[in-house]
């Protein structure tokens, strides 16, 4: 586009045609850039999309043959081979049992309506900070900021947990499989460091078993301050270059299981305060972080 940049008022006039993809590409790009910083305009575009979606809405059955074509391309589109992903999603043997037990032990807090225990590992590919469009840049930036905070936390030690296993194992909310996982000599405790608390304060711990089952431990109940019912703590992990959601912890975490079974090693953890139901991408600064020293 040539000429002076469009004013806010001019862009507002274009929001309807932008939402219907009825702008020339260069002008659309200018509107797109504006939407990154203007929540009001972004919300209006979202509303237009919803209305247009109703016009287009069709409940006809999804063409079955098309899915085969889509499924056939999934393996080659991810950053990892499908074999690795399949193994990660469907761990064999005991790992599967533990994972299933954890899932069974975690009722649906997914929509923020369940009890405090979270759902293991709803995870999003957060190449986010790197791959999101500029419109999503705000969120990505915050995620990146969160990751940065995680990264600068130094000297967090990884402890073996032998001395604490007995007390944890007696926690009534743990299943037999979870207690068994905790009993493993390779289980480690990783203290979380509060980002707002004073030096040395430890709001909670991550307990990580070799089988890939993890627990957020705030069993004393005084590390992570209770949140209102419409909020939840959410656990994040840094895996390679990604920040992934590891699950919802609820407003009063206590002891909450999660799973990283089959995943590449999580090198950093962070906990954020989110709306009930959790978020795909965090916009918030973490309240606690930890670095895993391998």
């Amino acid at each position: 586009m040539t000429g002076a940049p469009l004013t806010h008022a001019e862009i507002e006039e274009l929001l309807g045609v932008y939402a219907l993809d009825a702008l020339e590409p260069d002008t659309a790009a200018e509107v797109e850039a504006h939407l990154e910083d203007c929540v009001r305009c972004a919300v209006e575009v979202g509303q237009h999309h919803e209305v247009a979606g109703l016009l287009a809405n069709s409940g006809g059955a999804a063409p079955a043959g098309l899915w085969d074509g889509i499924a056939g391309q999934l393996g080659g589109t991810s950053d990892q081979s499908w074999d690795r992903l399949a193994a990660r999603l469907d761990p064999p043997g005991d790992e599967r049992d533990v994972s299933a037990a954890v899932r069974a032990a975690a009722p649906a807090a997914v929509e923020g309506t369940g009890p405090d225990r979270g759902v293991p590992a709803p995870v999003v590919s957060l190449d986010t900070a790197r791959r999101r469009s500029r419109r999503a840049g705000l969120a990505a930036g915050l995620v990146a900021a969160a990751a940065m905070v995680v990264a600068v936390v130094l000297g967090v030690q990884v402890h073996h947990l032998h001395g604490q296993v007995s007390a944890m194992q007696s926690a009534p909310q743990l299943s037999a499989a979870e207690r068994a996982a905790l009993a493993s000599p390779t289980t480690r405790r990783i203290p979380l460091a509060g980002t707002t608390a004073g030096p040395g304060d430890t709001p909670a711990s991550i307990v990580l078993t070799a089988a890939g089952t993890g627990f957020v431990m705030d069993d004393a109940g005084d590390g992570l301050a209770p949140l209102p019912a419409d909020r939840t703590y959410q656990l994040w992990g840094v895996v390679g270059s990604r920040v992934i959601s590891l699950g919802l912890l609820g407003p009063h975490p206590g002891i909450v299981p999660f799973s990283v079974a089959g995943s590449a090693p999580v090198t950093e953890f962070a906990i954020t305060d989110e709306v009930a139901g959790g978020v795909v991408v965090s916009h918030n600064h973490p309240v606690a972080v930890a670095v895993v020293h391998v």
Partner: protein
Amino acid sequence: MDVEQASDANLVVAVGRWYEPALAEIYRRHGGAVHALARRILRSDPPAEEVTQEVFLDLWRNPEKFDAQRGTLRSFLLARTHGKSVDVVRAEESRRRREERTTRETATAAYDIDREVWDMAVASQVKDALVALPDELRQPIELAYFGGHTYKEVATLLDEPEGTVKSRIRSGLGRLRVNLIERGIEPAGAEL
């Protein structure tokens, strides 16, 4: 994860973990709508199927682009479908074919909503809401959305100033939203 019980938002989260059954469930829920919209805009099956595949593969690759706080997954997928379909329509060859059959009757063609909308009750309300729009607001929306025209092309087709068409599309969408709400259909999306 019981994908059949999971919300759309949580299915997307699972897709972020490369959980194929979650994508399959999303496809089961919304694939029909996506394909129908692409088919309507492109008027041909092969490109519509291609667009449908691209939409779901894009979600697989970039699930974080869906923001549940901005709207529903279906509207997100349909917006992506529309954008991709329009891109195809505007490609040179498609443009040539389209121009051969483009007439003003596109704007006045009856809406076959009943056939296309997944719920008949909703379809009826959507149709009523659309019919309640004055022609000068409804026609530019139809031409732009289902015809894949730019607003400048719409202005030419309707023989109206570009600025007028631009404003009418925006105000028409706003009025349509109000009409839908008045009929008990609350389009999702954040409030201003």
